């Protein structure tokens, strides 16, 4: 693809801020409508092809795949016993990373915590400032939402309904399926609609045992629905089909891009239209406003390397910086006409912050698989997804909403089970014989959207570029903790019913933020008094401002958000292009 020069005297049709799932999708859709788009990304130029070393053997890596010794990644304990900003106490580490940056394959993708501080309540905030953002390291579980989610208020009275129904977004889910590729199996579940699936992965024997046992309980285990092309995509020359090779759990990107990432899936094709201009190292610090009209006029940004200030101009501004960064940018964009920040006459920007709670889960051992020959199980993008079963037909007395489990079993490049007691010949043999017999799963549950869970700007602390840091006021509530109790109990019950030997049951709730599914800080709605965006992710206050990432979510549901982020974004950008053509923006 050819990279065109950035022209700061030009008024672009649209500026897109961010290059992840949402920013990439906005760039794709808007350029395909023939619009001239400038994409600003805060991250450094990172040759992601070199970063993705999917086939590298640990013994071919200088640190056996581990984080280099001059770097430290925060542990669960450190998130718990320390308070943000987390930099203090790690003076010896040259680079400080969030928990997920704990190996050599992710270290350059996630940000340095010390350059990007935040304050307030504990939060395991994972940020990736490079082309493609977190799509370079995502878990790839690609699920749809349903009216059980969009109209959840109708079912239990809590919160707000989305301003759309499943039928509004379904055609766009289809478009995303076909454009990016997804693997899975049709299940015909009303609460978890099917996608247009490519060739599915296969379950291993322990997973089949669990599936059959669950079926007797009326619960559904299905192959991991992965945003991975298993048949290939004829229209995309940058991506290969999945060859089931191995080490998929490494998560440092897929070097053949069978797994979706925003650069190869969306941005490179958008550049091929000739309508996309990219600017790297561009830290957006304010959306500028025309004082006469109150409309957005462009973006004020800092070059992260030279520290120089620039302003780019456009007819429309599309914010896709990720849920929390987008809220931060709106709050930073204060002006006489918008004293509480841009698009914030409702006071809801930064509020209704929600995500998924995780931690509870179970590890078991399928005794009939002990001692079997090694099998290639980690060449699959994932093992299984155990779908939600709470508060569908029944009503749980302890909590509302639901949770699902992600899990898998079988052999991995680095064996499970090395925490076995002892040493010597017996230990070695135990690790070898059990390596394919382990199976485990962990829950992801809906955290309720609550106004009192929010972020605002810290009055003192600033990041490396002098931009005020985000301050968290966020805690899991009673509903989440009661749900977590239930997760632990059902996980154990289901593994026992399947006849697995229970190795470990985890009841520990991981730090807020651990799921990397933060959502809701600029929610959609039909009432401008209680929502930030309309159903097309367009600001109620500022007609030429769109916020197309996870911040638009009205609730978190319990399904992973990436596929919904992209489908919503596609729908909104179609609308944006029409409105721009019709002179309505």
């Amino acid at each position, binding site marked *: 693809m050819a990279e065109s020069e950035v022209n700061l005297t030009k008024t672009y049709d649209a500026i897109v801020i961010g290059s992840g799932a949402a920013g990439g999708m906005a760039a794709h859709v808007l350029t395909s409508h023939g619009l001239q788009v400038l994409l600003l990304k805060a991250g450094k130029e990172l040759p992601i092809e070199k970063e993705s070393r999917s*086939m590298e*053997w*640990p*013994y071919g890596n200088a640190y*056996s*795949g*581990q984080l*280099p*010794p*001059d770097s430290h990644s925060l542990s669960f304990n450190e998130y718990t016993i320390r308070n943000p900003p987390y930099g203090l106490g790690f003076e*010896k*580490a040259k680079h400080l990373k969030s928990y997920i940056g704990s190996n050599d394959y992710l270290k350059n993708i996630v940000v340095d915590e010390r350059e990007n501080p935040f304050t307030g309540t504990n939060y395991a905030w994972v940020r990736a400032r490079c082309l493609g953002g977190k799509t370079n390291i995502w878990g790839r579980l690609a699920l749809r939402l349903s009216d059980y989610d969009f109209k959840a208020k109708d079912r239990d009275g809590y919160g707000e309904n989305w301003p759309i129904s499943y039928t509004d977004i379904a055609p766009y889910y289809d478009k995303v399926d076909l454009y990016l590729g997804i693997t899975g199996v049709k299940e015909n579940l009303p609460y978890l609609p099917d996608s247009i699936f490519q060739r*599915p*992965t*296969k*379950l*291993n*024997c322990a*997973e*089949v045992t669990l599936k059959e046992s669950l079926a007797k309980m009326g619960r559904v285990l299905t192959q991991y629905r992965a945003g991975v092309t*298993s048949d290939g995509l004829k229209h995309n020359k940058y991506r290969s089909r999945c*060859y*089931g*090779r*191995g*080490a998929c759990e490494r998560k440092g990107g897929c070097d053949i891009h069978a797994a979706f990432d925003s650069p190869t899936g969306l941005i490179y094709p958008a550049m091929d239209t000739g309508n996309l201009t990219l600017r790297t190292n561009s830290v957006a610090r304010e959306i500028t406003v025309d004082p006469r009209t109150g409309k957005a006029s462009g973006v004020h940004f800092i070059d992260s390397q030279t520290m120089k200030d620039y302003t780019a101009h456009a007819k429309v501004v599309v914010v896709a910086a990720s849920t929390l960064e987008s809220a931060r940018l709106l709050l930073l964009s204060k002006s006489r006409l918008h004293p509480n920040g841009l698009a914030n006459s409702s006071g809801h920007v930064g509020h209704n912050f929600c995500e998924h709670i995780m931690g509870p889960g179970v590890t078991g051992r399928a005794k009939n698989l002990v001692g*079997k*020959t*090694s*099998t*290639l*199980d*980690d*060449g*699959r993008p994932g093992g299984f997804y155990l779908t939600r079963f709470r508060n569908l037909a029944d009503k749980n007395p302890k909590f509302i909403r639901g949770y699902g489990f992600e899990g898998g079993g079988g*052999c991995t*490049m*680095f*064996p499970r089970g*090395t925490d076995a*007691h*002892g*040493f*010597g*010949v017996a*230990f*070695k*043999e135990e*690790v*070898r014989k059990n*390596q394919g017999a382990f199976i485990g799963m962990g829950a992801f549950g809906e955290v309720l959207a609550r106004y009192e869970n929010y972020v605002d700007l810290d009055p003192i602390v600033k990041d490396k570029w002098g931009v005020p840091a985000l301050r968290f006021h966020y805690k899991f509530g009673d509903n989440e903790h009661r749900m977590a109790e239930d997760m632990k109990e059902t996980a154990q019950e289901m593994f026992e019913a399947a006849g697995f030997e229970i190795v470990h049951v985890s009841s520990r709730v991981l730090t807020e933020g651990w799921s990397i599914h933060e959502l809701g800080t600029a929610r959609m709605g039909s009432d401008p008094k209680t929502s930030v965006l309309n159903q097309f992710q367009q600001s109620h206050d500022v007609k030429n401002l769109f916020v197309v990432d996870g911040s638009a979510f009205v609730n978190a549901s319990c399904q992973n958000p990436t596929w919904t982020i992209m489908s919503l974004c596609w729908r909104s950008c179609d609308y944006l292009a029409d409105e721009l053509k019709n002179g309505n923006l």
Partner: protein
Amino acid sequence: MSTNDPMDLRQSRREWMKTSAVAIGASLLPLPAVAAETLQTETAPAAPQAKGAEAKPAARFFNPAQHALVDELSETIVPADSHSGGAKAARVADYIDQVLRESFDETQKALWREGLRLIDAMSRHYNGKSFVNANPEDRVAVLTVLSNNDHMTDLPEVRFFIELKRLTVRGYYTSKIGIHDELEYKGNRILQEFVGCDDPTPQTS
């Protein structure tokens, strides 16, 4: 000594502490000295630095005697057996040396130095020989004491054992021998079809 002997680590360590003080010198005491310990002379001095260059770690963390001891310790943790080579063949001691010489964690480095001396002191006490000179059964016996007491993490020798096992396991199962010979890992090759439970391929051996 027999590995079946019930062992009170706390009681017996008083005795081998005495022995070790005689055998190795008083530098071992008082305990715990681990956190406070500074760089010891047995580490090779850092190579002279080129002007402006970043500080480079010493060529080796372990001296030859320590390296030989780590070789035998790691081999005791993951030994060669009829199935595949062990930690020695997989050069786990070299791996650990690299981790430590590049580590910025002085506490971790001090734990290794102290731990190696404590282990040797234990071996001299229980077996009358250094760990390297003890026979395999006697080596196993020393580590069994620590493994059976691995909840006593206030004791530096126990913390050292846990660290020794952690790095040995990490080094071994990321080595060629560990991945290919021992575990016979099937990945990193191209498949036409995903392998599943129903397939006649290795799943049912």
